[in-house]
C-alpha cells in the first residue's frame, strides 16, 4: 500500500504532480482512467503536494507516520539455557565459517556462567584450611 494517499476530494487536477520538486508524482491516462502514481524512493516528503492541493485531498500524515514493513524474516538461534534470542542461523553459519568453530548458543550471562563453571575448582575447604578454619 502506498504511503501517499488521497481522500475522496481528489479530482485528478494534477496540481501535486506539477508541483512536486522531487518528481515523485506522475500520472497515467489510459482507457478513460486517470491514475496518480507516487514513488516513495523519489519522495522528499517535503509536503509541497499537501500545501498546494486545492482540494485538500492529500493525507500527508501517512507519509509522516507510516507503518513498518517486513523486510526479511530469518530463522533465529536462541540461548539454549534461557531462550533469549541471539542471532540468525545465517549469521551463525557465517561466524562459524570465519571462526572455524560453531560454539554453543548462549546468551552473555550464560556464556559467563559456563566459563566460570569451567575454571579450576578452588575448593572453599582448601582456602578455609589454609586460613585455619574448620
Amino acid at each position, binding site marked *: 500500500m502506498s504511503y501517499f494517499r488521497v481522500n475522496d476530494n481528489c479530482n485528478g487536477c494534477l496540481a501535486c504532480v506539477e508541483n*512536486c*520538486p*522531487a*518528481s515523485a508524482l506522475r500520472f497515467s491516462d489510459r482507457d478513460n482512467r486517470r491514475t496518480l502514481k507516487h514513488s516513495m524512493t*523519489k519522495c*522528499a516528503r*517535503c509536503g*509541497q503536494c499537501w*500545501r498546494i492541493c486545492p482540494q485538500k485531498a492529500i493525507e500527508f500524515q501517512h507519509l509522516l507516520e507510516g507503518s513498518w514493513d517486513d523486510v526479511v524474516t530469518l530463522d533465529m538461534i536462541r540461548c539454549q539455557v534461557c531462550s533469549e534470542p541471539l542471532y540468525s542461523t545465517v549469521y551463525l553459519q557465517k561466524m562459524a565459517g570465519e571462526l572455524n568453530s560453531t560454539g554453543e548458543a548462549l546468551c552473555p550471562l550464560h556464556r559467563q556462567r559456563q566459563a566460570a563453571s569451567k575454571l579450576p575448582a578452588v575448593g572453599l575447604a582448601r582456602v578455609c584450611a589454609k586460613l585455619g578454619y574448620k
Partner: protein
Amino acid sequence: MIVGDLKPRAEIVSAIKEYKQVLVLGCGSCVTVCLSGGEREAEQLSRELSQIRHIHGAPPKFEVGSILRQCERDLVIEYQDIPPGTDAVLSLACGAGVQVLADVFEPLPVIPALNTTFLGGSDKPGEWTEKCKGCGDCILIQTGGICPIARCAKSLFNGPCGGSQGGFCEVGGSRPCAWTQIVARLKKMDRLHHYEKINATKDWTKGGAAGPRKRVRIGLGDGNKRN
C-alpha cells in the same frame, strides 16, 4: 535545512559554455525541499539551458539526474554514474554537495548551479528564513529559542543595539529585531532572568574560526565502508 538559490542564468551559461556534454544533477534532500535544486529544478534548468538563445554557438548536450544526497561520498561513489562523454557536471546541490562530487569525480569539472545561502526554516509556504549560523556553541536555551547570532544583523550577544526601533532592525526591510523577539519570548516563558545574564565574548573557534570543523562518530566508518 540548507537553503540555496539558483544562480543567475547568465552566470551558469557562462560557466558551461566550454563544455560539450553536461550532467545536470539535482540533490534529493535540503535543496529539493526548499524548491531550488531537486530533480524538477534540474529538469527545468536543463530545458532552459537547451534553448539556443541562451547560448552562443551550440548548447551542450544535457543529461539530467538526481541523487538522494550529493554530500555523502560513499553514496555518490556507489550510486551515481556519470554518462559516457560527460565533460562537466552542473550540480544543483549546496556547496557541500558540489565539493563531494568534485572530490569523487576528479578531474571532472563540477560547476555549482546554486548559491548556498543559509541554514534556515520555512515559517510559511514558499518562504525560508535564516535560523542558524552553525556556531558550534548553541545558546538557544538562554534566548527563548531565537538565535541572536543568526537573526541579529550584528550577531549581538547581549541585547539589542541602538538601531532597534519599534521592534525592527535598523538594517531595514521588515527585519524584526532578534533581541526584541527574544525579550518578548522570554517574558512569555517567564524566563526574563535569562536576559540578565551577561554572556562572555563568544569563542568563535567552535564556529569555524579555528579552521574547517570535523565530526568523527566513533564506531562508524573505518573498515565498514569505503572512505
